[in-house]
């Protein structure tokens, strides 16, 4: 749909939202790749609503392996306090997105 007549501010918001969705998709792709390598499972088995401890059954060493890799790839710091509320694959994506948005600004 042509939205050239839309309020420029609204269009900007839409673009920002689009960026956010794109960025989160990229993070999810990376995370799925890391998880499939680590757990030796198929990417189609990983959905955003899966709980990383209960459904994917990863232990604390594996969690930190992910964390250290994500920190390196996205140049972010993921302290333990930030990890406390993380339950699902989507939570990890959100956290990485939030932290990398912080470092950019």
């Amino acid at each position, binding site marked *: 749909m042509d939205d050239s007549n839309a309020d420029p501010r609204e269009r900007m918001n839409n673009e920002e939202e689009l960026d956010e969705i794109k960025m989160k998709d990229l993070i999810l792709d990376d995370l799925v790749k890391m998880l499939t390598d680590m757990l030796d499972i198929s990417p189609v088995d990983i959905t955003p609503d899966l709980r990383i401890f209960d459904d994917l059954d990863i232990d*604390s*060493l594996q969690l*930190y*392996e992910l*964390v*250290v*890799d994500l*920190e390196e790839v996205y140049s972010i*710091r993921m302290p*333990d306090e930030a990890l406390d509320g993380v339950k699902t694959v989507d939570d990890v994506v959100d956290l990485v997105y939030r932290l990398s948005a912080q470092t950019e600004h």
Partner: protein
Amino acid sequence: MPVEEHEFAERLLSIYENVLLTEEQALSKGYFSDLSNAEMHTLDAIGPYEARTMTETATNLGITTGTLTVAIDRLVKKGYVVRKRDEVDRRVVRISLTKNGKLASRIHNKFHTVLAKRILEPYTPEEQELLMRMVTDIDSYIESQKQRYGSSDSIRKTAKSVASDSRRRDDNG
């Protein structure tokens, strides 16, 4: 005094000894069983992010750079630490953690926070604050005693002998 001093002193000493012992046992049974307690604390002092200089790290640990060099040699050999020359000043060597080093340090820190969490859990928020205040007071008092006895040399000797004892136990085990 309603509290027997000698019993209190025994409890304090027991905490000190058991924390060291539990850490050691957790280490030897865990993923990073090739690390001694002293080595784990060296990894913690380097930290997971910026590369550090030897002098900085030695000061943090309260040891000489000579002692640290020996420790770092061993940690490099075991694959937990890397040495790199500073990009700007080539005379300076910086040390940082490898992926395994970062993992070991984070798991070890987690061990500390879980321990703290379990200790605090049974108490109400007010009680937790009181406990924190009292533990801080104990810590400051002991810190002031350390200062009073001049440099930290004697404490360092104790820490060193604990570390070398644990290493010896590691080697025998």
